[in-house]
């Protein structure tokens, strides 16, 4: 498979190129004209095919008929709210990954959103980098292969069953949490992973720390996997987050 090869080999792609290799199709369902236009423009700039629906009914019809990789759905929509839209889609057997955007950012709202069938939940206001990173991860999950047992990025290898990590010939010793952090980064190799995504997926916390606590964990991990090697694998993406990949771009 195309994706398989992509992952088994070296991930040589920058985030804005991931989309172009298979022309990701995205449906944005958002009633606020200005933010909708902004999103469409921004996603098209990074190579997505982005369609727009401005109310719940239109969104449902489009999402149901079109073949989209990801849906970005505002929670509060005219004519049919976002949660009911997703619920209806899921009932019809449509499992296109859906990301919910909402002004309601509390934990229980989030849980409600995920329970209704959403795959991710992003409170407003959000940064586009955060949204893009999450959409990338969702679309990859949709189309890509299911769980692999070994992740490889360059000469870095992580065995999910034996919990072994090696770079080249060197065996690396990671703390359990460092292992999970690396596992998550490598699972999404070549994709930007934001700090909040890490906090949510590796630590399962849904609050903003007021400090740079994630950066410290990353720098520890970096010192273990990159220190003393010529080619760094763990990169900081300014204004967005982190990415693990081979090669410098």
């Amino acid at each position, binding site marked *: 498979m195309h994706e398989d090869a992509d992952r088994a080999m070296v991930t040589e792609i920058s985030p804005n190129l991931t989309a172009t290799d298979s022309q990701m199709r995205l449906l944005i369902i958002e009633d606020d004209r200005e933010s909708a236009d902004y999103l469409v423009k921004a996603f098209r700039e990074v190579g997505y095919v982005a369609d727009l629906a401005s109310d719940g009914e239109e969104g449902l019809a489009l999402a149901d008929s079109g073949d989209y990789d990801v849906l970005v759905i505002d929670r509060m929509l005219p004519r049919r709210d976002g949660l009911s839209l997703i619920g209806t889609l899921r009932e019809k057997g449509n499992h296109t990954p859906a990301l919910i955007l909402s002004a309601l950012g509390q*934990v229980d709202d989030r849980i409600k959103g995920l329970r209704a069938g959403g795959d991710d939940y992003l409170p407003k206001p959000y940064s586009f980098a955060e949204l893009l990173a999450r959409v990338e991860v969702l679309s990859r999950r949709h189309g890509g292969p299911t769980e692999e047992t070994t992740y490889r990025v360059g000469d870095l290898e992580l065995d999910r069953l034996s919990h072994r990590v090696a770079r080249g010939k060197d065996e690396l010793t990671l703390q359990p949490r460092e292992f999970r952090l690396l596992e998550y980064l490598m699972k999404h190799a070549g994709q930007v992973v934001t700090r909040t995504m890490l906090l949510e997926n590796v630590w399962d916390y849904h609050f*903003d720390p*007021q400090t740079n*606590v994630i950066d410290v964990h990353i720098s*520890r991990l970096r010192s273990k996997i990159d220190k003393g090697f010529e080619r760094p694998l763990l990169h900081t993406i300014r204004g967005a987050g982190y990415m693990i990949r081979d090669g410098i771009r």
Partner: protein
Amino acid sequence: MTAFGKLIRTTAFRLTLVYLFLFALFAASLLGYFAWNTRRLITEQITTTVNAEIGEISDIYGRRGLRGLIFTIENRALRPGANLYLVTTPAGQAIGGNVGSLAPGVMATTGWSETDYRRLDEQDTADHRALVYVAELPNGFRLLIGRDLEERRRLFGIVAKAAQFSLLIVVVLGLGGGIFVARRVLRRIDAMTGTTRRIMAGDLSGRLPVGRSGDELDRLAESLNAMLERIEALMMGLKEVSDNIAHDLKTPLTRLRNRAEEALASSGSEAEYRAALERTIEESDGLIRTFNALLMIARAESGQARDNMDNFDAAEVANGIHELYEPLAEDDGMSLNVRTAFAPLHGNRELISQALANLVENAIKYGKPALSAQPLGADAVAGAGGKEILIEARRDGDQVLLCVTDHGPGIPESDRKHAVERFVRLEASRTQSGSGLGLSLASAVATLHGGELRLGDAHPGLTATLAIPARAGISVRLAAQTPNVSQKVA
């Protein structure tokens, strides 16, 4: 509505009217029963007397004939308070006795009857009533013996008068009492209404008057006062928040605006524009964080987060937070340690984690030992041990304690209450970053769970403790270590 109208509309007055009616009914039936019984008794007495006399006189007649009879009757009729006597011939002509006139036909029927009569010696007065017995003598003569009913009538009159009088008293006293009670109640209600109006008009410090009797109105006033207390506290909180939002959000907003304006005005290079934009985004991220924290506090304080409660072990939370912050503390040259024991809780795990995270962040930010010349006596512990931050989770009685202890300068006793308030960054830490909401969020979370945030002295340093009631039911099982006992409990 007139004052009187208001008065008679009170519940107290209406109740009084109902009672008044009931009492009047009661008094009337009591008197009626009394009157009826008395009447019966008097009648009985008269019957007995008359019967006896008839026996006596029949006897005399038997022995001494008509002459003896008339003689005896005439004799007896002269006595004071005498009975009524009348003897008539078979033709109906009176031949003896003291009765002047009778209702017609009385003498025709034998046996008991009631009749009007007039005595012989009193012509002018009106008729009287009497209970009479008419007996037929063997030779056709008829004998009437009776008793005046004046006594009975008088007695009945007395009772009737008593009934009228007592009814009057009942009504007057009842109405008076009703008005008195109603006015008393009305006065208190009016006072309450007045206070309520003042409060509605905006004076939230008003309280309802509470009497000393502890009656239902006092209890009502007490609960209403407690409610007002809470409302005032909430309103104060709200006002404080809006003031603080105005201050602490407007400041960074102004900064943001100024920066954008400045960048726009200057003709800088692209790199300079970029830098300005990046700073703008940073600043707005900070604003969003502050805003989120405020919303979180508001949510915790309003109790909305109660929907999302489950059972978990506080020790796990402490270990998780320790794991998250340990590298950060180490980077800052401090050591973050954790000491936990099984401490089951029922609560919102996410919020408690965040509260604890805030305490740890505070400890890392402000808990550095005071190395400079501060008269804290910190020198003794300012060595390696002084840089320790300890997270503890344990159970203490029926509470679960989550403590974070640092050995920094601490917070002076007088500032501790103040420190929990929103946006307060104590003077010493003004220069450091942070929204100043950490402690207030922790405090709001503790309150949401029915607990509190305590700030104590670690000699030197600060111990911040989230004290939260332990999960109900666990204490029993923990206390009963042996399995068969716990089965009994279950």
